[in-house]
Every structure is written in structure tokens, then in C-alpha cells.
């Protein structure tokens, strides 16, 4: 299969061991394989910061790849490296988050919209008033501050909704669970919970401590999506935040390499909301649910028009030549 492809694509990612990012990398591999155009993937995938990502990008430049698909540690922090890559004639595509480097192409989940969509649905479910438990991501991460903007925007539209408590889960399951349990034991009444994608442990916590099941908004992680259909009395919504955006990034990079430049530098993938309050929503959730996936993996393993691999391919997580 390696002979079929002609391009070498470099990939840089700075969070390792998290289900969403693992799915993203697998989508990149699967898409590279499915496209038939890629001879080799050169993946730099580790836990590091913007400076470390600069190092990886420069190493990829040294490796003379044709395109770099990057999930930026920070939109501005890797500008210098991306600029050097473009100068070296390398196509640069940022996925998941925008970057400030103007020469780079961006295909991204709209994080602000992600938070806005879910929060707005939640506040409507709450009847436009009451207390919400606001469980953010990692303090100081740029995706978290984007989502905060969206959340605040929705909050502004519902003046009677108050934040009962704001916590940072650090996108860690155990912290989130301890926080919700501590909060529940205070007996403070709440009317809804918004989480930044750490969701199934929150439902578990509510069920285990026999607390009232208030409406919950989370992400489209396999575990949570399953719970939305199976946990009795649970009202909630999953907002899509497809990790398969990585595959879309590879597709975009290949299109550009093949001379098919998109009209704009930035392509936004708009999130969808699947709720279980209506029958229509329930049907969507049923269709999306996939108990065979790891509960941390988003169920939206493909993006129409952008990815061409099969489920088996992404789950196998094999790139060209493997």
C-alpha cells in the first residue's frame, strides 16, 4: 500500500493518553491510509507545551515532509514554526483550534459554539432560571477559555440562570468525580450541570449518590452517549466535538497538495447537539451510540464529506505502511 502514496505527512500533537486526542490521531492515520495518497506518516505525539511543539514542527521540517497537520498547543505560540514550515514549502493545516499564522489552513471544531450550543439548550431545559454547576476544563488551556466565552455568551442570554459553583476538572475523570461528589454532599440545590466533556463520571456520581438527576450537558463521548439512552430519568445532551477532525485535516492537506485549495483559509466544523428530551433527538442518539468504543472516545468517528475511512479502519488505528 505504501507504494500507492506519494506524500509524506507530518503530524504534531501535544496531548497524549486522552481518549479524544487518541481518536484524533487514529483518524489521521486511517484517513491517510484510506486516501491512498500518503506514503508515510511522521507522527510527533507526546505531552508537551508550545515550545515543545515548535521543536516537533522543526523536526518535521528537517524530515522534509510535504504537509504538517497540527493540533496546536496554543494558537499564537507556534507561529514561528508554522511560518518556517510554509517558507520551506510545506502545507500547514491546523486542526481542532485556530492558529494565528496567516499562511496556515485551519479546519477546526468551533469551541465557542460548542459551549454556547450546549449551554443554551441546558438553560432552556432549566426553564430559563436556576442554578448551574459549571465544570470547566483545564485552567489556562486555550480551548477552555474559548469554551468559557461561549458559555458566558449563553449565560448572558438567560439572566435568571446563576452559576452555583465553577470548578476546573483539569479534564481529569477522578478530579471531576471527586468535585461533583463533594459538591453534592453540601446539599446545595442545583438545576443543571454543564461539563466540558468529562461527563460519564458525573452521571455515575449522581446515580451512585442517589442525587436528583438534573439535566446534564456533555460531549459525544461513547460512555455518555450510551448513558443518555440507558440511564432512566436522565435528561441531557451531547454536543459533538469530533476527534475525527484529525482525519478531516489530513483530507484538507491532501486536497491542497493536489492543488485544490479551499476558498477560505479557515473551515469550521459546526457542532451538533443530540439531546434525549425529544423523540427526534433520541433517535439520533440511538444511531450514534456505540458501546463497543472506549467510553472516552467520541462516537462521531467520522465527518461526512471529510473522512472516507471505515469504522474498522479508525479502530484498527493503522496508518500507511503499518
Amino acid at each position, binding site marked *: 500500500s505504501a507504494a500507492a502514496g506519494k506524500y509524506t505527512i507530518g503530524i504534531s500533537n501535544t496531548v497524549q493518553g486522552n481518549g479524544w486526542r487518541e481518536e484524533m490521531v487514529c483518524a489521521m492515520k486511517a484517513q491517510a491510509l484510506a486516501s491512498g495518497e500518503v506514503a508515510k506518516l511522521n507522527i510527533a505525539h507526546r505531552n508537551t507545551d508550545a*515550545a515543545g511543539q515548535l*521543536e516537533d514542527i522543526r523536526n518535521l521540517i528537517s524530515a522534509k515532509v510535504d504537509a504538517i497537520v497540527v493540533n496546536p498547543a*496554543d494558537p*499564537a505560540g507556534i507561529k514561528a514554526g508554522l511560518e518556517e514550515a510554509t517558507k520551506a514549502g510545506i502545507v500547514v493545516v491546523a486542526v481542532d483550534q485556530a492558529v494565528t499564522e496567516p499562511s496556515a489552513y485551519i479546519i477546526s471544531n468551533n469551541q465557542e459554539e460548542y459551549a454556547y450550543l450546549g449551554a443554551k439548550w441546558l438553560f432552556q431545559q432549566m426553564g430559563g432560571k436556576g442554578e448551574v454547576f459549571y465544570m470547566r476544563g483545564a485552567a489556562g488551556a486555550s480551548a477552555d477559555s474559548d469554551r468559557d466565552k461561549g458559555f458566558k455568551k449563553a449565560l448572558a442570554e438567560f439572566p435568571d440562570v446563576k452559576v452555583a459553583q465553577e470548578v476546573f476538572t483539569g479534564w481529569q475523570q477522578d478530579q471531576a468525580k471527586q468535585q461533583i461528589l463533594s459538591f453534592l454532599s453540601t446539599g446545595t440545590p442545583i438545576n443543571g450541570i454543564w461539563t466540558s466533556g468529562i461527563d460519564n463520571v458525573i452521571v455515575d456520581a449522581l446515580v451512585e449518590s442517589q442525587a436528583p438527576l438534573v439535566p446534564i450537558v456533555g460531549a459525544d463521548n461513547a460512555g455518555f452517549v450510551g448513558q443518555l439512552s440507558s440511564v432512566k430519568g436522565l435528561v441531557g445532551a451531547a454536543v459533538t466535538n469530533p476527534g475525527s477532525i484529525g482525519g478531516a485535516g489530513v483530507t484538507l492537506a491532501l486536497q491542497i497538495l493536489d492543488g485544490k485549495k479551499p476558498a477560505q483559509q479557515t473551515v469550521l466544523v459546526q457542532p451538533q447537539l443530540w439531546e434525549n428530551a425529544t423523540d427526534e433527538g433520541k433517535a439520533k442518539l440511538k444511531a450514534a451510540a456505540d458501546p463497543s468504543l472506549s467510553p472516552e472516545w467520541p462516537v462521531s468517528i467520522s465527518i461526512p464529506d471529510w473522512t472516507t475511512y471505515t469504522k474498522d479502519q479508525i479502530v484498527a488505528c493503522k496508518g500507511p505502511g503499518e
Partner: protein
Amino acid sequence: MSHFLRRQGWVIGLLALLIVLFIATRIIQPGYGSGDFGSLARAVLPYAFAVAAQTVVVIAGGIDLSVAAMMALTSVTAASMMAGASEEYALLVVPFVLAMGLVLGALNGLLIVVTRVPDIVVTLAMLFVLQGAALLVLDAPGGAAAEWLKALISGTVPIPGLPDAIDAWLPKALLVLVVCLCVIWVPLRRSRLGLSIYAIGSSELAAFRSGVPVKRTRIIAYALSGLFAAFGGLALTMSTGIGAPIPGPYLLASVAAVVLGGVALGGGKGGLLGPIVAVFVLRLVRTDLTLLAIDPNVTAIIEGAIMVAVVMFGAFITMRGRQ
């Protein structure tokens, strides 16, 4: 000569390893050239300062778990101060941030001396404190860096009279590193203060009885560590142009490089050169792994294995040497 060999043997071995790695890199990627070396130097910069910060306290018989958090704090402070300010203002920001590192480092030392809590615990607590402070300065990555600061580490040093082909192998980042470390370390190492730092690391009791002001020396060692960490924070801001409040992977990397560099974790032994060379080795290994397009999950295994293997090898040699 034998004294020199015995004392510097490990560093010489590391240098040899580095050269072997360079040759390997050239074989893997025949096009690997001066520009790529410049990239390596820039990648090394923050690690090198983190390792320098760690080395000073380890030589003094301590350990500093707050290195990475200190870098984050100084980095966000610099970036937020420079955001929207004039280019000249950065001339004030740099000394301010360095002084801040020095003072906070001294605070580390002071707390250790005054509370008599083990250094590992004090600096662990300070890790949280500094991280929190960084989040208060900037709650998300942001800020900016003055253009001249960014230019300080990009490109090469033109030396008149030398052909460009040689100039090209002298990246500014390397020069900045060498100058910053040498200006502080070389005079220190041979001074009474430097000897005192080695002395308290080697034997606190003997140092005290030799008239070394143990507490003051310990505070100074931590202050120096803070200063180097502030350099590291500035290096982060210089290379990324922003400040990020979440610390990068510099803590564990610094401890690993210190040990690889032949500085005993008990204190009193080693120098700065070894750990810096070790940083180059570790970064070059990472480059090679990327160039080879090794499965990224396997790279974690390889990096861990290299660390363990080299240290085991070192321990093995020392054991053989003793027998």
C-alpha cells in the same frame, strides 16, 4: 591527567555519544544541516536553563520540584508585561523577570532553611504556589514578546572574517545559552561561594565546621536556581512569543538530564557541562525518533529505556571501577 579523566570521564563519554548521535542523524537524514542544528539549539534552550536551575540545587544537596512552575510564572509575567508595550519597555521587563526568579528562588531556600521541612516537600508546595500565581497573572496562554527578544534567538551569529558556511553552524540561541550560563557559572564555580555550594552538598556538617555559612549558601543556591529558571521562562516567551500558565514538561526532564549529566543526586559532585550535554543528547534523540517516523507511542518507551539504560550503565561502570 588521570584526575581530569576520572572527574570528567562521564562528560567526555556523553560528548562522544553526542557526536555519534550527530553522525547517526546525518545518516538518517543526509540533508540534516546547519538550519536544523539551529532548530536543535532553540529546542535545547528552555531545557538547558531548566537543567541548569536543577543542577545548582542538586550540587548543593537539594532538589527543586518547582523549576517548571517557576518557568511558567516568569514566562507569563514577561509575556503579559510586554503585551501591548513598546519595544524598549522589554528592556525593563527582562531584568525585572530575572530579579523575580532570583527572589522567588531565594524564597524557596529561605523556606527550606527556616521551616526545616525537607527541600523536596517545600519545593513541591512551591510548585503549587507558583502555578497558582501563574494562573493569576494569565488565566490562559497569551501575552506577547518584544520583537528584538524573539530575534535574539533566531538566526545565526555573523562573525566577520568567517565564511558563511561556518557562521551558519553558530545559531544565536546557542550563543545566548553559552553566554548566559558562562557569565554566571564560570566565575561562580571557582569562587569561594561556588566551593561552598559544593561543600554543603557534599557534607553539610563538614561544611559548617569549615566555616561555610550553610544556611546562607543554601539560600543562594536556590536563588541561583530561580534565576536560571527565570532565564528558562524568558526563553519560553522568546521562542513562542507568548506565556503559558500551565508548566511544560521541564521538571522531570531536568531531573533526568541532571542524572544523565553525571551529577549525583546526593549532591557535591558534577558540573554544569555534563547536564547541558545530556540535554543536547536527549533532544537529538527526539529529533532522530521524529526523523525515523517511529510510532509515537513507541518513542515514549524508547526515551524511558534510554534514560534507564544510560543510568544503569553509569552505575555499572562505577561499580566495576570500585572493584
